[in-house]
């Protein structure tokens, strides 16, 4: 195959993969290429090798094996009835591309997904074949993420985990009604069944390794999923509820949100008004609150308005605090960790620093200012040695006083 031919197909098959939000390459076991015949390493934390002008990280070669598809999901550019250009790679071509990118240090590994050709099981076999060649024939020790096909034979879905660091199955839409309407070829029970299969395999493999050191590893970076936001009528509250149920039921590592984005040759069933990107951001923030700040799902839902939507002009933590003003102010010199984590503007790092510093001495407002980036936001909600916010939390205009400018909000939870 000539390089220009590969180039043309790469353009089509990467373009088709751009709607998948995840490019993560972290959370797997440590590996290095020492003592091996091939290349590759993973060190727990993934590396973003580049950033695209859409602000997203590029850490993996994220492509589709093919964008031909026998399914007809309306939100999907690759659906059968779409007029998009079609292309396919052979497993060997994907392998070659991955290795030549990896050797030049462009990527951490491969994120492979595919449209469904012939049958779900056939497609799944092809995906597995790519990872088998990489691992077995080239001793590739970099990161592999396989998007599995829920309709495929469960045995195949389970085999994927023997080669991949991470496996994912997209739930696609937050509600069953949305799924039936927009992805008529998919079914929620089938998706959840496949997630369940993976969960069992992951748990069993972990168990086995505790007893036999040589037991094979299975998807050590766990499983993740993605939900499209704004393509159906589901509210933020619905989405948060669904995500937390998925975390609980299937032990997911991550739920990714992808704001529905206008796609070429879209189906008219879609709203076609792109939801504000801020909505997606708010959902990630709420996810963060549940995973790192100890908020229960219903508490995040309390931060939403009567319409079930999280406010767009402030982050959910601040929204929650404004709903529950009676819980504030929090004394930075006395309050337990959980309470401090509830203070708008105090991140996990700032809270840790406060806890460490106050073992030394009592903290003044000025000290807190040195440990956080947004003292203005924090001030109304805390008590310090020399500071007490007199009835500030009751002032009706509090929200407008501290509601940060947009640019600041984006950075609030930035890691």
């Amino acid at each position: 195959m000539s390089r220009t031919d590969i180039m043309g197909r790469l353009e089509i098959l990467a373009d088709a993969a751009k709607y998948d939000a995840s490019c993560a390459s972290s959370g797997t076991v440590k590996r290095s290429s020492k003592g091996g015949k091939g290349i590759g390493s993973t060190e727990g934390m993934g590396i973003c090798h580049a950033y695209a002008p859409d602000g997203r990280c590029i850490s993996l070669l994220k492509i589709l094996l093919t964008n031909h598809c026998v399914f007809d999901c309306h939100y999907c550019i690759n659906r059968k009835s779409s007029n998009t250009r079609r292309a396919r790679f052979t497993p060997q071509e994907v392998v070659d591309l991955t290795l030549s990118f990896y050797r030049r240090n462009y990527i951490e590994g491969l994120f492979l997904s595919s449209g469904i050709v012939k049958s779900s099981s056939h497609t799944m076999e092809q995906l597995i074949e790519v990872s088998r060649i990489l691992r077995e024939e080239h001793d590739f020790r970099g990161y592999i993420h396989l998007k599995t096909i829920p309709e495929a034979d469960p045995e195949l879905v389970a085999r994927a985990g023997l080669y991949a660091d991470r496996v994912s199955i997209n739930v696609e839409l937050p509600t069953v009604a949305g799924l039936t309407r927009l992805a008529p070829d998919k079914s929620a029970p089938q998706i959840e069944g496949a997630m369940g299969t993976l969960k069992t395999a992951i748990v069993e493999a972990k168990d086995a390794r505790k007893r036999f050191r040589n037991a094979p590893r299975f998807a050590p970076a766990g499983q993740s999923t993605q939900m499209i936001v704004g393509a159906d009528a589901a509210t933020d509250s619905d989405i948060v509820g669904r995500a937390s149920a998925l975390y609980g039921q299937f032990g997911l590592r991550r739920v990714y949100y992808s704001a529905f984005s206008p796609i070429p040759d879209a189906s008219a069933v879609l709203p076609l008004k792109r939801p504000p990107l801020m909505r997606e951001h708010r959902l990630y923030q709420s996810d963060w609150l549940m995973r790192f700040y100890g908020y229960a799902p219903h508490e995040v839902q309390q931060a939403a308005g009567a319409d079930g939507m999280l406010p767009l002009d402030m982050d959910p933590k601040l929204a929650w605090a404004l709903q529950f003003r009676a819980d504030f102010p929090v004394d930075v010199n006395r309050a337990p960790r959980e309470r401090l984590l509830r203070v708008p503007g105090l991140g996990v790092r700032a809270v840790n620093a406060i806890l460490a510093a106050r073992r030394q001495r009592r903290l003044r407002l000025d000290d807190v200012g040195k440990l956080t980036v947004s003292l203005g936001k924090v001030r109304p909600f805390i008590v310090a040695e020399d500071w007490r916010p007199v009835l500030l939390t009751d002032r009706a205009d509090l929200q407008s006083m501290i509601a940060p400018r947009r640019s600041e909000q984006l950075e609030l939870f930035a890691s």
Partner: protein
Amino acid sequence: MTARQTLRRPTLHRASLPAADDFEIWRDIARRLIRADMPPECVVWESPADQRADLFASRDAFLPEPPVSAQQPRATRAFLQLAQSAVLHIDPERFSLLYRLLWRLQSNHRLMDDKADEDVRRVEDLARQVRRDIHKMRAFVRFRVVEEPEGERYVAWFEPEHHILRANAAFFVRRFTSMHWSILTPRGSIHWDGEALHEGPPAARTDARSGDPVEALWGKYYSSIFNPARLKVGAMLKEMPRKYWKNMPEAALIPELIAGAQAREARMVDAGAQDFGDRPKSLVEVGDAIVACRRCAIGCNGTSAVMGEGPTDPVLMIVGEQPGDQEELQGRPFVGPAGQVLHAHLSGAGIAAGRAYVTNAVKHFKFVPQGKRRLHQTPTAGEIDTCRWWIESERALLRPRIVLALGASAARSLLGKTVSVQSERGKPRTLDDGSELWIATHPSYLLRLEGDSRVLEERKFINDLRSVAMRLSQLS
């Protein structure tokens, strides 16, 4: 710590480090100084890379010899971890800053916990910047392949901000053990031959050859994986500041990608996405809107749209495929030959046609002219999906309990996917609003059959209608 300050200017001791990034040697010297009880203000630190000569220090004393009885200095693990990173920073003050912190640590063992302390914060800052530089080097080094007599060598040119090259080499060894590679920087170079690491002198950018053919593929990937509908240049710049761009081949594409993003998004949207706006609030609005609708090619063929008709609170909604020749002329659904077949069988099954709302999946008539005749043509899946907006609007306004879809096109319109009428007929499916969908053949299909097969199909059709009639009687 100020106890031994005197009024005289203290004697300055010069601590010279052989390399800019050698933590072990810094630690040895610092240990010795602490044991000699040497306060920070009496030590001047220097290393070759800092190119800094302190005039006062030049004549000063050598390092003091600590008394044998002196206690070993103490340092917490937190301090050691930070110091190992911070020592790689280019700030010439780093050695003295670290020494001051170590000195203070001797009398205050918990100093590192005080994150508001100026020295602690400063060192943490240095360490953070170094860690970031290390991370960015791992991310942004770009190898280019060079053919050498012994085989391929992968060569990269990189400009780290801090003295991280040697500290970071092990990472590249772990990752690319079986490759031969070199990383060249303005402050030195490292080379790996598959077995051992060699250090080399500083290099120039021109030492790394350009023109790796895979770069073009990588650039293509970079441009394609980016979604122009979500431009966020600030977020990109935060993680990939411009100073790194010059050594990353893909970065040359960024200005063009940003400039073209709007046009590309507009093309994406135009290429099919059509904004239907808000749902119509009444059947009259639907009727007006479809008259003006040109969202698919059928609407552009000069025919008039045909609206559904019937009661506004129907239990049953009957959906056909599209208006035919007669329907288009009269502006009413199911008035042609197929409509007559339908009505005959409806009354045969005991369904009062007047109680049902009758409409079509596609609102305009698709045909090819043949002489004076207009020959019916089946709408494409895309056309059905586009027109689905209108039938869904009608359903939302009328909320029928039962929907009867006649033919494959109608079924697709309601289900969003193509199903086989023969295997789906005779049993209800639940639609998203809880109503029941029944599927049967389109009466025009019966018209095309002859003889036995027509008799057979008509019987099936009647059976389907009877089932619906039964459900209707249960519901009312």
